[in-house]
């Protein structure tokens, strides 16, 4: 802080206005030293364990279970029993009561969950507080509403629950993805075995507390933590009727291969390399905001992140100038600080992957820009990055980076924008920035992407279905469409 000269007639210009740290208090979260497996409403002592850390400081947070195949078997057994012993035959309006309860408890304990989400995952508290938690609660509220209306959602098709759902979720939105998975499954009368991501198990484990508070019958939701081996055991298990997976395309393909011929239902929500398309008639400053939100939201750990920016060539220069300037104001640092815009990279492994791809971008000849920012010494960090002069053939324009790295490409006509945007093995999402309503509709028809945002980006709502084309997966989550994977129809 610059000391000001108060006597002079002309006030001096301060060098800068540094915001004092404004950390959200950690005291609200009471973590246990060890967590077991939540099976049949009880905590089971695990045979193997590992340590989960805070990616912002590498500080150990708790010891959690590495569930083995036997552990998974017990969890599936508990889920099967709960399914048979009443949950599946409970009237929809009764199931809804539990879901409403869970939603309300999540709202009441929102701050606690938000702090833990940021602590264990590295995302800025303003995002876990304003996005993850409200949306997670909204999902439970929304699907609670469907629980007793399934007959109306699918008239004359007699919907019935599938059975035991095995659900495997990623580390980028741990609690929100849990909500996306559990809420529709329970609303439809299924029971669940859920495996949180290896690096972010804590909010799912705290969620077990919510389930108890809501007095959900034992075994309806079981949570087993662990790495890929636990996930594989869950996928393989004979007693599982449906697998829902959100994660990498590579693992998704392996799951699909494994399940072929097994009769198990499957939905996959995989990677993406979304095109964010900016036309020259857009509202410029708001488009720049949208570009920033599209790629730096949650450190770019978003499957639908707008990682390929297509700018109409006539406005490329002002857009890139404005973008670089905006990047300078992004505050990178302590995820628990309320003023932090970009938090920590989720894991050492992910940081390594981002670095490798960024190096390849440099080598292939793209021009790199990173704003001056001081990154903390401990923990996993990567500065917000923009690549200009990117060609469609570069790896950074083709592969999913899953980090705060944007590739800028240009186009001349709407047709060219569509052609380039669709020229990817993925098809999860896209963004269109233009003041022309007719062009928005035309683009939405042409783009092969599950979600097309117009003049906004990364906006989610439980009523809106979400899912991909091509290598981004299949099946939809959210909305009426999100019920279907959790139902079977006897016709």
């Amino acid at each position, binding site marked *: 802080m610059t000391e000001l000269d108060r006597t002079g007639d*002309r006030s001096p210009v*301060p060098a800068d*206005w540094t915001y004092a740290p*404004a950390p959200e208090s950690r005291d609200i979260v009471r973590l246990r030293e060890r967590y077991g497996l939540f099976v049949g409403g009880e905590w089971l002592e695990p045979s193997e364990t590992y340590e989960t850390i805070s990616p912002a400081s590498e500080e150990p947070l708790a010891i959690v279970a590495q569930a083995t195949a036997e552990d998974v078997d017990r969890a599936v057994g508990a889920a099967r029993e709960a399914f048979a012993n009443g949950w599946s035959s409970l009237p929809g309006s009764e199931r809804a009561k539990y879901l409403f309860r869970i939603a309300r408890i999540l709202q009441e304990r929102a701050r606690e969950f938000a702090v833990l989400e940021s602590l264990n995952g590295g995302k800025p508290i*303003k995002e876990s507080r304003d996005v993850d938690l409200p949306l997670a609660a909204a999902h439970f509220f929304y699907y609670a509403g469907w629980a007793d209306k399934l007959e109306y959602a699918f008239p004359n098709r007699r919907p019935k629950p599938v059975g035991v759902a095995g659900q495997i979720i990623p580390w980028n939105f741990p609690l929100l993805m849990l909500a996306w998975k559990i809420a529709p499954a329970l609303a439809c009368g299924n029971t669940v075995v859920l495996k949180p991501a290896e690096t972010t198990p804590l909010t799912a484990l705290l969620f077990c507390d919510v389930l108890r508070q809501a007095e959900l019958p034992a075994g309806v939701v079981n949570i087993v933590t662990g790495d890929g081996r636990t996930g594989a055991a869950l996928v393989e298990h004979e007693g599982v009727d449906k697998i829902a997976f959100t994660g990498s395309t590579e693992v998704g393909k392996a799951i699909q291969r494994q399940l072929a011929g097994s009769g198990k239902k499957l939905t996959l929500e995989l990677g993406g390399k979304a095109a964010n398309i900016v036309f020259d008639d857009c*509202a410029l400053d708001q488009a720049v905001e949208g570009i920033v939100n599209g790629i730096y939201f949650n450190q770019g750990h978003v499957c639908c992140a707008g990682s390929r920016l297509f700018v109409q060539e006539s406005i490329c220069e002002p857009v890139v100038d404005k973008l670089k300037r905006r990047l300078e104001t992004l505050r990178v640092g302590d995820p628990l600080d309320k003023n932090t815009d970009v938090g920590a990279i989720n894991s050492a492994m992910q940081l390594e992957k981002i670095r490798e791809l960024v190096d390849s971008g440099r080598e292939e000849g793209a021009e790199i820009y990173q704003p001056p920012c001081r990154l903390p010494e401990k923990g996993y960090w990567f500065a917000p990055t923009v690549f200009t002069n990117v060609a469609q053939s570069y790896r950074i324009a083709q592969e999913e980076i899953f980090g705060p790295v944007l590739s800028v490409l240009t186009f001349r006509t709407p047709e060219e924008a569509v052609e380039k945007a669709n020229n990817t093995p993925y098809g999860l999402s896209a963004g269109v920035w233009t003041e022309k309503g007719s062009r928005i509709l035309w683009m939405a028809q042409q783009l092969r992407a599950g979600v097309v945002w117009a003049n906004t980006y990364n906006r989610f709502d439980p009523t809106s279905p979400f899912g991909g084309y091509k290598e981004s997966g299949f099946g939809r989550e959210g909305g009426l469409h999100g019920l279907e994977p959790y139902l079977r129809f006897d016709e």
Partner: protein
Amino acid sequence: MAQAPALPAGFELPLEPRLPRIGSVDAVALEERAASLAKRSIKRESKVFALELAIRTTDLTTLEGADTPGKVAALCSKAMRPDPSDPSIPRCAAICVYPNLVPTARERLEGSGVHVAAVATGFPSGQYPTHIKVADVRSAVELGADEIDMVIDRGAFLSGRYAKVYDEVVRVKEACGDIRLKVILETGELGTYDNVRRATLLAIAGGADFVKTSTGKISPAATLPVALCMLEAIRDVHAETGRRVGFKAAGGIRQAKQAVQHLVLVHETLGAEWLTPELYRLGASSLLNDILMQLRKEKTGVYQGPDYFTLD
């Protein structure tokens, strides 16, 4: 706010060779960005800095038919020394009054460094012939004002007579000479952010040293999205031409918290360079006491009742 109709053909911004394109403003995204900046958490020393800056950039204002020399003299004393019990509190930037009260303020503020701003051009409506407006400005200058706050002709603007709005700004600027000219857009009457942006660029093209949101007579006045919209236009002008135009938020800012939010908006849109009374002003009256209360709380750790701060 709704989206504005397209600009009539032939609408060109004159004067500067390379003013930014007028473009458009997306209301939803603008309001979202303003709301997200309003959530910045400003604490401890950074809060004290902001509160003191708010005082240093305040145009302490009284614009009532009932204004008297006595009332204005009291306000002048307040502007020079906002908190008599704490000499470390900085003075305000200016006093803002009707032209008739300029001599009183002038006399009282002599040598204090606090400027005297006069509203003119048929404030607050601006519904007067141009020559009256220019005469109004001339007389305010003769009476000793060292800053002029003019209003644009919203009737002309809203009926698409942009040239009239522009010409008036040019003529008032001529009448001001070297004196700082603030152009009030009265954004509460413009209806859309697109209009706010156009009017901002129009005023800047006409020669405004400052663009100002409102008269304080109309609600809504200086909302955060309106301020952001105008700041972004100022940023574009600076990027294109290098010219630094000031910004004044006036009307509806009553609490210290709002003032800090406005300062955050400027800081993160235009940078620290704009955080000076030369380029930034807050037009307010009741705001000052709330700032003083907050400052004393930061310094002593406890709040004091309103009776410990003077009402002027």
